[in-house]
């Protein structure tokens, strides 16, 4: 399942749809497993009337988790060395997200073959919600 250096080229991309029509219930599930019960993510009344947003929105870490699904499907299980993101726009219920990894570099470090990836997750309007980088071990 792991990537092979011989089959990779800089600029190659891998894209997956990571969520379609994101439900509020998914936000509740993520609150429960992550332990982050910030009402901004599950409590519409609070979020509208107190926080001043149009409604509940996704935990950044949920979007990172969805992006991570694309990443581990691409690089294989247990292959990630680094995974980092910036949350560039909020994600709302009803959003459909696509995540893309692009090969930025293929290199060797301390005897390990590595791939550096740039990562971007966008919503149905093409707006980027997560941008980041990752590094994973690859095979020859």
């Amino acid at each position, binding site marked *: 399942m792991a990537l092979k250096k011989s089959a990779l080229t800089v600029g190659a991309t891998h894209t997956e749809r990571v969520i379609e029509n994101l439900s509020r219930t998914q936000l509740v599930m993520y609150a429960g497993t992550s332990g982050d019960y910030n009402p901004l993510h599950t409590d519409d009344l609070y979020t509208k009337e107190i926080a001043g947003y149009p409604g509940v929105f996704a935990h950044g870490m949920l979007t990172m*988790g969805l992006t991570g699904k694309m990443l581990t499907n691409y690089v294989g299980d247990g292959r990630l060395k*680094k*995974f980092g993101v910036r949350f560039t726009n909020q994600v709302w219920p009803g959003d459909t997200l696509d995540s893309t990894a692009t090969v930025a570099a293929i290199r060797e470090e301390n005897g390990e073959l590595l791939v550096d990836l740039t990562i971007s997750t966008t919503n149905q309007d093409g707006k980027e919600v997560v941008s980041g980088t990752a590094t994973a071990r690859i095979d020859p």
Partner: protein
Amino acid sequence: MMFARSVDDPNPVYYDAEAAKKTEVGGIIAPPTFPQSVAQFDPDYFLRPKHGQKWFGSAKGPTGITEKPASSGGLHAEQHFEYHRPLRPGDVLTVETKPGATWEKESKRAGKLLFSERITEYRDQNGDLVVTARSVGVRTEKPVAQS
């Protein structure tokens, strides 16, 4: 498995011991963003309602507290993980969090932004470093404007 479900990831390596045995990692591992759930084990975590304390989310009214919060609240700006090995069931992790840098920025969409960084080190039962996390939070002067 519940965590994998909550990030909509059906990969059996996160819950099916038989299927996971046949993979390269040889057994169940945790998804890459799972370490953040350490919040469950922090007795003082401020984003969880606590026994006997007022909660700022809605109940009879839109908030359960009477004082107005000082800002429109904190948002997560960045998250970075460095993995030294996969996390496996049975691991006992000890976590140490240190504050990192803080900085300010002016933004059109949310006024003055106050960024603060936290570095969290996850060590296993042998004292070995398994995950290092760097989290950047931001407090906004006003809610982020929607474009």
